[in-house]
């Protein structure tokens, strides 16, 4: 049986900041939800189900926060689901919500993802020593830095490519009023001059720690038909793989390649770089831009950095990547994936404001999580999918 066509008809996000001391977790979620509902022209009473996502509970120290959040999220009397897939959770959560609509279970689903990093310390939470093991873990940066080094070795990329990405994303963020970092005057030189944190990753090549939330309203064809500018869902995919395995490719994981191939097939895309107008790719450390460009098929293996270096991932390039400023400019971890999905929707709705890519018709939203082991992606378009 064919899927019911579904579309994003509302997108909302908070102003992401290092500390949102002015709101509780519930208040943070509702700020994004209320904006998404206003955008969709709906009220909470018109929503059939709520799907919530956030990263590991140790980040805020609240076990199963969906329990205490249920009433504030307007979920009383409705189905409420929580999704867990580490850093990719914002993407996975949006896909679970869209699946409920595409499967014909619900007409209108509201999905929200959040993180309130100021309540704790993610670096600590990701580095709790495990007995008998060597205590060399050093947060997400410490985990990914060796694999970035592997990418540089395998691709032969010049060592300043990461700085090119960081300068571009931080400059894009100046056009996004919701972005956490608004660092004027970030240049390749200033990034290269910043402190080396986890060699080869520098301070300015690293995502910030943010409080924030993102929410989407996803509706079936009949409801979406009333929207002036729906972002139609052309394809969704999730894939996972083992954290560690003999000869596992952590630079270009099998699950990532498989997910991308299936996504493009669903969306009828044969040449992603020619057919995707804007991409929001999960890049928490700058080097992941060229790494994912290759894994996603925008460039051949070992060639991703050439697109970055040539400026082809800038807003006026062949494949604009992270026009919103990306994860490098705002990282409320649980929400970061949904922000990618939501920003992709904004692009094809023509609603991305100053960071709009002119005439964007199809966009990619992408998230990954864990030790590069969970992948979630979607393609949204301004036209209803055919077939």
């Amino acid at each position, binding site marked *: 049986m064919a899927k019911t066509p579904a579309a994003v008809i509302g997108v909302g996000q908070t102003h992401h900041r290092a500390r949102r001391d*002015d709101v509780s977790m519930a208040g943070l979620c509702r700020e994004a939800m209320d904006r998404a509902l206003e955008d969709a022209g709906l009220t909470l009473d018109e929503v059939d189900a709520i799907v919530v996502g956030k990263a590991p509970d140790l980040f805020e120290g609240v076990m199963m926060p969906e329990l205490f959040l249920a*009433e504030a999220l307007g979920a009383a009397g409705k189905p409420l689901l929580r999704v867990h897939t580490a850093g990719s959770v914002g993407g996975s959560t949006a896909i679970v919500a869209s699946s409920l609509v595409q499967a014909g279970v619900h007409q209108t689903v509201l999905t929200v993802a959040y993180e309130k990093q100021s309540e704790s310390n993610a670096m600590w939470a990701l580095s709790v020593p495990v007995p008998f093991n060597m205590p060399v873990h*050093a947060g997400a940066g410490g985990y990914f830095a060796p694999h970035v080094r592997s990418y540089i070795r395998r691709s032969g990329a010049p060592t300043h490519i990461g700085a090119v990405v960081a300068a571009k994303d931080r400059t894009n963020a100046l056009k996004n009023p919701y972005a956490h970092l608004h660092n004027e005057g970030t240049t390749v030189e200033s990034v290269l001059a910043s402190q080396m*944190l986890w060699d080869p990753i520098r301070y300015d090549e690293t995502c910030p720690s943010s409080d924030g939330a993102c929410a989407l309203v996803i509706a079936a064809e009949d409801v979406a038909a009333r929207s002036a500018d729906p972002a139609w869902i052309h394809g969704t995919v999730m894939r996972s793989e083992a*954290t560690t395995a003999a*000869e596992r490719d952590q630079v270009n994981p099998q699950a990532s390649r498989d997910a991308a191939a299936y996504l493009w097939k669903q969306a009828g895309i044969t040449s992603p770089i020619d057919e995707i107008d804007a991409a929001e790719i999960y890049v928490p450390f700058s080097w992941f831009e060229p790494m994912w460009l290759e894994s996603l098929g925008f460039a051949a293996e070992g060639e991703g950095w050439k697109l970055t270096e040539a400026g082809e991932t800038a807003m006026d390039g062949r494949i604009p990547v992270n026009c919103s400023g990306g994860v490098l400019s705002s990282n409320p971890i649980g929400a970061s994936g949904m922000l990618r999905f939501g920003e992709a929707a904004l692009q094809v709705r023509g609603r991305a404001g100053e960071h709009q890519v002119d005439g964007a018709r199809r966009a990619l939203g992408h998230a990954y999580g864990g030790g590069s082991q969970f992948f979630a992606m979607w393609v949204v378009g301004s036209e209803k999918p055919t077939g």
Partner: protein
Amino acid sequence: MSRTLSAPVTVAFDYTRSTGPVIGRFLTGLRDGVVVGARTSDGRVVVPPPEFDPVTHRATGGDGGDPYVEVGPEGTVTSWVWVPEPVKAQPLDRPFAWALVTLDGADVPLLHALDVASPDEASTGMRVRVRWAAERVGAITDIACFEPVEAGSGGLATGAGAPSATTVDGPVTGVVTPVSLDYVYAASPEESAFYRAIAEGRIVGQRCPHCGKVYVPPRSACPADGTPTTDEVELSETGTVTTFCIVNVPFLGQRITPPYVSAYVLLDGADIAFLHLILDCPAEDVHMGMRVKAVWKPREEWGTTIENISHFAPTGEPDADYETYRNHL
């Protein structure tokens, strides 16, 4: 001897919770010695005030009005349960009751501790009142507990009377929530065999019976085919640095002082690299393909831990050929 090794782990952190304006208003009230609820759209007075109206979903106080209602320090027990053996961090260190107390002026009950000596002294319908904490800081623990109204009749000795002024001003916007969890970490049988061998100065991997890959430490489920690794393979103390990072950043809970090199070491004969420290050379000299060997701590310091190997150090051999480790990057 147990088949598996285990060890205690404590995960503890003082979380800093933002209350938002509504819960902040409630906690500010407690600090100032009053209990504050809010009137919801259906006319009920709810304590603590809900952040969002359960019917209209609007933010409490968000429309500019004043929904807050001061409720009485006395109320009626609507239900209760006896706690014969209090545990750490509960409000009282002697047997007590958890009670649902509907305060005078409120329509729904608040859960808190009730200080009575035995279950015979607790009953549904009994009148109770707030016993304030000696020092109030803007937290739910500012209510030390509830106590029977009779207990304080004729005097203010229990502290239930007019609360003293506090020295702190301004609204409460946050609370600190210390969390401490004690776990017992259990290693798998395969890992346990590895750590027991390490305690004898040997590095023992296991080969997957299906795919033939040598895992170190061994696995209870080979990631490729799901079977436990079985055949023991004694591994060399030498290996190759595949990739690495130099950790320059200090962080909470860090056990090694930065800067340090955290490297994937592919032992000769193994099919998977594991993370360890590289020392005995400047960090900037560490490179991919560098040959290294295990440096053990003095034997009297050994236990069933990978930390018996203090670190890996350069062997001085020529670098490994890229082809020997490229599939491990």
